[in-house]
């Protein structure tokens, strides 16, 4: 194989595809994966690295071509050995009790476990109520210079804040569905 310093032929609008396009020239000179709209694959520039976020929530307004962002794909590689989806079934002062579902091999039976609350970030702890879900990942981290380290990570499932109107809609729908289920249950008598 060879890598050329020219770009592949351009796609037309019908070919616009939700994929992350690549080009060999890009790979030849950088460890960055270009992310661009396939509608125009002709421009590839570096994302300007000096755009650092200001903690005061101030957004720097600056000129940037939308084709210019890139993802640095260098660095270490995480090799995932096993991952569980953990459903919180209870908690006490020090630990949370959870049911573990193996995401690496869904055929494995569910297990039960306890995890110290101190294993979680300060942000996550108050959210670890019954029914909350978190992910437990274990594996190895291969660093750029070849060193291998083990890792174990706990991450709470992100659940969006739902507006009060949406909550009302969901409650109404649940009530309606509940009514349907009750009416279809074997012991239901008309007029109940």
């Amino acid at each position, binding site marked *: 194989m060879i890598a050329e310093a020219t770009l592949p032929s351009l796609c037309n609008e019908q070919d616009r595809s939700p*994929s992350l396009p690549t080009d060999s020239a890009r*790979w*030849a000179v950088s460890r960055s994966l270009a992310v661009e709209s396939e509608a125009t694959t002709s421009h590839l520039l570096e*994302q300007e690295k000096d*755009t650092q976020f200001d903690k005061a929530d101030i957004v720097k307004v*600056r000129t940037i071509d939308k084709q210019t962002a890139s993802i640095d794909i260098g660095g270490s590689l995480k090799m995932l050995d096993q991952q569980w989806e953990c459903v919180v079934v209870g908690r006490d002062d020090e630990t949370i009790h959870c049911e573990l579902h193996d995401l690496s091999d869904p055929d494995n039976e569910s297990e039960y476990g306890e995890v110290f609350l101190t294993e979680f970030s300060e*942000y996550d702890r108050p959210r670890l109520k019954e029914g909350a879900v978190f*992910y437990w990942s274990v594996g190895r981290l291969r660093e750029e210079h070849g060193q291998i380290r083990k890792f174990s990570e706990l991450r709470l499932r992100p659940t969006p804040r*739902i507006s009060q109107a949406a909550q009302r809609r969901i409650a109404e729908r649940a009530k309606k569905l509940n009514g349907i289920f009750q009416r279809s249950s074997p012991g239901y008598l008309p007029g109940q």
Partner: protein
Amino acid sequence: MSEHQIQQKIISIVLLGDFNPAIFHPQWLAFNELVSKESANVAKNMSCQSEFSAFEIDGMHYQVDQQRFGLTTKDESQVPILLDTVKGILTLLEHTPLQAIGLNYDFRYSMADVQSWDRLGHTLAPKDHWSKLLADPGMAGVMIRGARPEVPAARLDIRVNPIMDGKNGVFIGVNQHYRFDDLDSTAIAQRNERVLNILDQDWRAFCNYALQAANEILRASRLTEIDRDC
């Protein structure tokens, strides 16, 4: 013969539709509890404007323009979070008109040696025809488009590119592309629901398929030697 080595996995979900990049800001995600406030405060590589927004939080790269939303991670352990985040954003932006979704799984490998690197290129793009047209032809990239009969995706693209990183690198990208042409353009809720169903039902099988596809392609580098000058 030693084996190839995986260098990087890049996993992404890309949506096409009509987006408002201006609202895609780390603090908006924090306000809606999709990321922690602490993480939002240390977002990296941030550029948020009315027509384009990009930043990185907790190993997740967000990129949004007016026609395209992309969420990418190179950390395999973050994949469930990636899926949950896309679902969460769609829940919040339930009135966003969507046109297509792409599931993407990309791989970077280092081949064991330059011979297997060349062999892969020769197998995927045989040179016998090209040799009549060009001196010293070499594969600079291949994309094959097809479908998987058992999957309702519109098409599947597999790309293979060489990586000139001095490590006999190869990029393999798998894109499973869905379109919603069968739904009326005003059926926003149905399109939204379709995306959620795809993420729930097709994602795992897609990942398994992408891994199999990458392995199958790399097998070409182990096939019997094909003479470069054939």
